[in-house]
């Protein structure tokens, strides 16, 4: 079943972002949801579907119904999805599925956690280490940045990618974040800052790694028919694709080409467009090597040229194909499953032409990519300003 033109995003919301000790994870979700709903001019009783992700800081089982209870809604469709960083794109796809199947017509998609203040930094790092295989990787102390470091080193080995290329990702995204009023990071950085930062897992240093934020994000997704009731401009889902190729890095089919290729192909086919039609992209960026890989695997640049694409400024806000115009997870916010949600929110704002100082010139069609695990599970979205 195609999802083209089956669902619209009519509201987006971000919670307070950064260190927000006066709010819980559920509170961050609720604040983002309220802001998204207000933007759409809707009321809580309009919501008949709820999709959320998971929490690693708060001890709730069945987060979907926990959140419904907290928000005082009784949705006839509710789910919680555990797909790591891929969750937001997949949540939107599930929302569109539910709408296309007639099971819901107004779905709240939300994710958020108090990752910065709801746990210590050591607890955050240790909890995330659980992403490694508990029996065959964990005993070796691999660390999540270590997994991505091995991917980065292999890309450097095969394609001549340099640390400076990855640094360009961090520097450009920081520049974008400085134009975003709600971004976690507020100070500019230079290539020298990135290259000279504390080493975490060679070749990655601290500024090659995403943030640990308190943050929540939300979308209101509606059927095209009901979207007419919203006061905001709807953004249309043109295409979507998903794939899972492995979970643990030791089982990854390749360290230089990932499932992004397949999920993007599915999304392009559904949208009836190709990579050359994409005007800007919001790519998952847990580490600086990842947007480089995804730009290649989504066909936005030829294989092996992702490093040059960033180094030469072609992905900068005023470049040929702007990437992560809000600052991404490296500079805007990263809080569990909410990280990639902000890429969707940013795409919506850019497509509407409401991105203010960071507005890109061409904003009719965007690609958003999320990935979870170690580039294990992928979701690609193609969003358009008009009905396709």
């Amino acid at each position, binding site marked *: 079943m195609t999802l083209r033109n089956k669902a619209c995003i009519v509201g987006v919301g971000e919670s307070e972002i950064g260190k927000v000790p006066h709010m819980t994870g559920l509170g961050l979700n609720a604040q983002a949801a309220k802001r998204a709903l207000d933007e759409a001019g809707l009321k809580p009783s309009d919501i008949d579907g709820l999709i959320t992700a998971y929490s690693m800081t708060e001890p709730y089982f069945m987060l979907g119904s926990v959140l419904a209870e907290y928000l005082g809604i009784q949705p006839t469709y509710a789910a919680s999805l555990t797909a790591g960083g891929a969750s937001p794109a997949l949540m939107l796809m599930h929302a569109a599925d539910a709408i296309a199947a007639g099971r819901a017509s107004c779905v709240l998609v939300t994710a958020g956690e108090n990752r910065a203040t709801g746990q210590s930094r*050591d607890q955050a*790092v240790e909890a995330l280490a659980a992403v490694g295989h*508990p029996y*065959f*990787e964990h*005993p070796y*102390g691999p*660390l999540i940045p270590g997994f991505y470091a*091995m991917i980065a080193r292999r890309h450097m080995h095969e394609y001549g990618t340099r640390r400076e290329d990855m640094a360009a990702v961090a520097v450009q995204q920081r520049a974008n974040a400085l134009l975003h009023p709600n971004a976690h990071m507020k100070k500019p950085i230079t290539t020298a800052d990135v290259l000279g930062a504390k080493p975490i897992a060679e070749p990655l240093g601290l500024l090659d790694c995403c943030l640990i934020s308190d943050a929540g994000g939300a979308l209101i997704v509606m059927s095209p028919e009901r979207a007419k009731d919203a006061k905001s401009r709807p953004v249309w889902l043109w295409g979507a694709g998903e794939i899972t190729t492995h979970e643990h890095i*030791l089982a990854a089919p390749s360290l230089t080409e990932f499932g992004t290729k397949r999920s993007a192909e599915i999304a392009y086919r559904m949208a009836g467009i190709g990579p050359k039609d994409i005007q800007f992209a919001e790519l998952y960026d847990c580490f600086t090597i990842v947007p480089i890989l995804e730009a290649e695997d989504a066909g936005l640049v030829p294989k092996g040229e992702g490093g040059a694409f960033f180094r030469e400024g072609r992905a900068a806000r005023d470049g040929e194909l702007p990437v992560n115009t809000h600052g991404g997870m490296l500079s805007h916010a990263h809080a569990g499953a909410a990280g990639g949600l902000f890429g969707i929110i940013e795409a919506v704002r850019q497509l509407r032409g409401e991105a203010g100082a960071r507005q890109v010139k061409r904003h009719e069609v965007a690609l958003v990519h999320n990935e979870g695990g170690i580039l294990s599970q992928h979701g690609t979205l193609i969003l358009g300003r008009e009905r396709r």
Partner: protein
Amino acid sequence: MSSPGPLPLPAPNADSAAYWAGAKAGKLLLQRCRDCGATWFMSRHLCASCWSEQVESVEASGRGRVHSFTVIHRAPSAAFAGQVPYVVALIDLAEGPRMLANIVGAGAREIAIGELVRVTFEQRGDGALPQFQRAP
């Protein structure tokens, strides 16, 4: 590697009992499908190629090549704090399957992609953990 603090121990389960028993006995074991001949690293109840349940353990040569590696500077937990900096690598075994391990012993931090390594065993609790060192 010296071991200050409780490093994670081998944790055999029904899938991996033979693997960890092998490691304790100084053998690196893979699994092989009796029906289709596929060989793999991560212990499973069935063959992920053909779903045959006719699975057997086979001893690997213990030789391999480094596919990629990293040097960890930020310990993932208190247990590893005394170990940094240490090398984590993906090893392509001579038999084909890929596994993850530390590179230990002399010159570990000078390791390079493509370099030959061979297995060694590190005692952890009552068991042993397959590790790799640079092959002379």
